[in-house]
């Protein structure tokens, strides 16, 4: 997920950098208020901890290994604001000294991995934990929070890649930066994260949390009781973002009809040049189900299915938590 330089235009990098600055400022303020001066070094140590977490190879089926980012874990252990600063510093060191992630794209990387990831992960964790009051609820929150957190960050990165060919082209219509439109970038980024990285992250986060809770329960961050407004706002934003997948139709190269996008032409190993320009030459589009509900405009279809999906999830949680309360009486 570390975006190297030259894949995003400087304008995009500047915009995302500017977007991150207020969050840094708020985080610094919050951290100064929340933790005493004596705990200040914890930020640096948290940063080195997150840096080293990325060095830990977790075994995966099939004999390969992957590594977690640990943004949600840090947010749960130290609080989301400390996590934001810690992960930013870890990313800066990776960019400056290890060539991992670009210098210009540092703002973009921070936006995805130091802001979106820990905050989304933390608030989902908190949202679930406050509603399902049990050990299981807490772990459910950790697993779902870290899984959604890393995947949301990957989605943001995919969107940043995907808007490049729409916005930045030279006179001949060639993309100047990342050449892949949203319809390619989103599946390319999300499928591996949904299937592999998200699972690793969730398992790792839950396991470490369990260990720390067993050994030293006092060290876990106790945030103020958050309003669930933040989560609802986030859900609304995500629902509105879903039609982004449609932006790609026909705009980037002008050779796709909206009716073509669902059709998959698996010529991923096409040798040579297709004179007609673009056909969807990516077999992994086959894995992406078409979210359109028949007979209505596609944008509406996307939003509808997103709303329905979120609603179903909320209903399930409400039912689960009401069952819990009935079992143990009301203890609120």
């Amino acid at each position, binding site marked *: 997920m570390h975006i190297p330089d030259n894949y995003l235009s400087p304008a995009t990098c500047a915009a995302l950098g500017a977007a991150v600055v207020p969050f840094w400022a708020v985080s*610094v303020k919050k951290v100064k208020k929340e933790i005493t001066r004596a705990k200040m*070094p914890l930020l*640096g140590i948290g*940063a080195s901890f997150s840096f080293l977490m990325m060095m830990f190879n977790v*075994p995966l089926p099939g004999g390969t290994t992957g590594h977690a980012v640990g943004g949600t874990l840090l947010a749960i252990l130290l609080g989301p604001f400390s996590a934001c600063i810690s992960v930013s510093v870890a990313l800066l060191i990776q960019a400056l*000294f290890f060539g991992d992630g670009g210098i210009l794209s540092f703002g973009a990387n921070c936006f995805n991995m130091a802001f979106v990831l820990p905050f989304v992960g933390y608030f989902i964790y908190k949202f679930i934990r406050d509603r399902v009051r049990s050990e299981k609820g807490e772990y459910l929150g950790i697993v779902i929070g870290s899984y959604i957190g890393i995947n949301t960050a990957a989605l943001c990165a995919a969107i940043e890649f995907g808007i490049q060919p729409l916005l930045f082209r*030279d006179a001949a219509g*060639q993309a100047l930066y990342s050449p892949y439109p949203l319809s390619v970038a989103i599946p390319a980024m999300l499928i591996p994260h949904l299937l592999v990285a998200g699972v690793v992250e969730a398992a790792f986060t839950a396991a*470490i949390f369990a*260990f720390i809770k067993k050994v030293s329960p006092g060290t876990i961050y106790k945030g103020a009781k958050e309003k669930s407004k933040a989560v609802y706002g986030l859900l609304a934003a995500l629902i509105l973002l879903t039609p982004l997948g449609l932006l790609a139709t026909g705009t980037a190269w002008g050779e796709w009809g909206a009716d073509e996008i669902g059709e998959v032409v698996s010529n991923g190993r096409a040798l040579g040049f297709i004179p007609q320009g673009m056909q969807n030459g990516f077999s992994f589009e086959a894995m992406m189900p078409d979210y359109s509900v028949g007979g209505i405009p596609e944008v509406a279809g996307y939003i509808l299915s997103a709303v329905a999906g979120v609603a179903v999830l909320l209903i399930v949680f409400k039912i689960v938590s009401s069952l819990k309360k009935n079992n143990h009486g009301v203890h609120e």
Partner: protein
Amino acid sequence: MPEWLLKDENYQLLPDRDTFIDKSILSLLRILSRIRAQSGYVGGKHGVHALWKVAGTFLLIVLLSLSRNIWFLAAVGAYLLAALSLMPAERILRILKTGLVISFFSFLILLPSFFMGNRYSLVMIPLKTLATVTAVGILSHTTGWHCVTGALKSFFIPDIFIFVLDITIKYIVLLGELSLDLFYSLKLRSVGKNTGKYSSLSGIAGTLFLRSKEMAEDMYSAMECRGFTGSYRVRRRFRFTAADFLYVMVHAAFIAIFVYLG
């Protein structure tokens, strides 16, 4: 002599897969050796001040990113090669290796877009990436950590960030050594087939976190006892040397070339 000591033991080790431990150990070792080597870097007698280096590298990266002209890339490439040629061989190898690996990876990622009819990206982006990574590599292999953090201070970066950055670099080494020891002991204790290894991994990370919390508190007390108040001051013994002048001139020339080539 007890009876059981005289018996022949015949214990067959069952094969066990623990590549992930080895991989973790290797990546940790690579980081640690890299940081150790780095902390020894001091600018030579003809060294350029870190402030110029950080600013110049940043300028080059911005220009590279904006440029669409292959000749500008060629000009920057020539300069970077010249800068590389002044460095010791092992550092040159390291910088080039990083750059080539990353740009080859870029090339692979962009290959499909070439077949989609995009001729520009396949050539330009990997080359730009190579130049950018090399520029950052040259900066980080010729400048000590503390010089870079000092230079950042001159760019009005808030103290808290510099403070955190400083601590982070030091503690990557300390905590890295700690986790290395934990990995070694996990490896040594895994004789034959050890099915409990995976749960130990979270134990290692958890222990690391708890230890780091203790370290943080101890360190702050230690710093406070020595009179640290949280603010950094850069001592300005700033001499503009001939090397600095040359460096600034070269980068000014790049701006001119960039404007000229468009």
